[in-house]
């Protein structure tokens, strides 16, 4: 499964998670290889009133740059952008980072649906959406939007998920391309940086 299936195709990776998300991301983000081309956008539901420590936690562990998103920032290749607490994170035409303080979706701001839907609009078939452990239904509509736009959808195997509700809600809405354990999702992400394979070997 860990073949570099999508290296030529994927323009952006979007990841959504909630309960149990920090641990799941610790299994994934450090797997991202230096030389990754696609930018990576992450929504993790967090308490809104405190500044996020995600950049401090993940920065030293990752081989690629890690930043908290700032509005209108031009998107850099192979960079991880975390949604700031209390803002929705979107990908805008440019592509640039865009934030909004529109009302919460599924009681969540940032919302996974909002990020995923903007990725479907901005990248269509070039979007890779990954939905992980979580205790509510945010992300299910976003996954459907990415699928309908021709993008690739990966969900964490609900049997492995700390909280399976989020993934199960997405699965209930339609098929996904891959249902994997974290170790295999990490393998898939590593493959994204693989060099293009020659047409004939």
């Amino acid at each position, binding site marked *: 499964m860990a073949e570099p299936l999508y290296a030529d195709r994927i323009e952006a990776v979007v990841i959504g998670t909630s309960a149990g998300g920090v641990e799941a991301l610790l299994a994934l983000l450090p797997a991202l290889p230096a030389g990754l081309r696609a930018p990576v956008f992450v929504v993790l539901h967090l308490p809104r009133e405190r500044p996020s420590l995600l950049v401090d936690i993940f920065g030293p562990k990752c081989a690629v740059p890690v930043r908290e998103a700032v509005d*209108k920032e031009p998107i850099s290749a192979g960079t991880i952008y975390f949604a700031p607490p209390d*803002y929705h994170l*979107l990908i805008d035409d440019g592509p640039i980072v865009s934030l909004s303080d529109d*009302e919460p979706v599924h009681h969540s701001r940032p919302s996974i649906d909002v990020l995923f*839907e903007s990725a479907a*609009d901005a990248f269509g078939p070039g979007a890779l959406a990954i939905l992980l452990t979580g205790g509510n239904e945010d992300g299910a509509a976003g996954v459907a939007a990415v699928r309908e736009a021709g993008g690739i959808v990966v969900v964490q195997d609900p049997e492995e998920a700390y909280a399976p509700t989020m993934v199960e809600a997405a699965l209930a809405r339609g098929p996904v391309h891959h249902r994997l354990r974290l170790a295999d999702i990490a393998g898939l992400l590593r493959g994204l940086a693989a060099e293009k394979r020659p047409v004939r070997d």
Partner: protein
Amino acid sequence: MTVSSFDIERRLLFDAIYLKYHYDFRGYAEASARRRVRTAMVRLECATVSQLQDRVLHDPTAFADVLDVLTVPVSEMFRDPGYFKALRERVVPMLRTYPSLKVWVAGCSTGEEAYSIAILLREEGLLERTIIYATDINPRTLQQAEAGIYDIARVPGFSENYRRAGGRAPLSDHYTARYGRAAIDTTLKRHIVFSDHSLATDSVFAEVQLVSCRNVLIYFKRELQDRALSLFHEALCRRGFLGIGSKESLRWSAFAQAFDDIAGEDRIYQKRDEDGRAALRRPH
């Protein structure tokens, strides 16, 4: 990438709204505008944007409902306490030096930000010499702002923000609670002028010492953002202050060199002096 039918219809909708009602959403950031238009379609039960356009053009009430969705009135008092703390510590000492003060709260929505600043200035003994201009494009939210009545359930959140912002009294000194609502002290309102103003189409109306415009520019594309910043720059007196949202930045605007960053994370800027003008890249 080819333009989707949805985006074509959305542009036509914004053209229609501009021509018919003179509200200009054409410079709004695409990603959040897409989402808001989809929300409006759900709320007005329209299957396509074209249907929504039909409703908007032939039914002013439907337009008012769409305007509510497109302008999203979400705000709270003393949001981002660090910002108000920085205003108190970094800006108020300079404001004291002026015999009279004018403050512009641009995009005031339902008024929470304007009242927060009024409370802060009152506590600093400056309100008596201040006029706060609180502007927005949505007449419904302006009416709510002027009424200054909020659901009591929101007040504990406001109070907590206020305390963390360095508030000196109980917040309840500034409102009256009754029938499940909190009504803002009317003596605060005497110093606030609520009025209709569009950052997309109107011009500067006064010289001010402080502009507070938070989480408004995030909804604008860069060109419109630069237009709004040019208004602020023009409205501000020499060495006047500009406050923006905590996740907004001037860095990618045409005005990056026109202001000094004086409060870092709290996003308060000071207009650079005249000699700084050479460094200013005028948009277009």
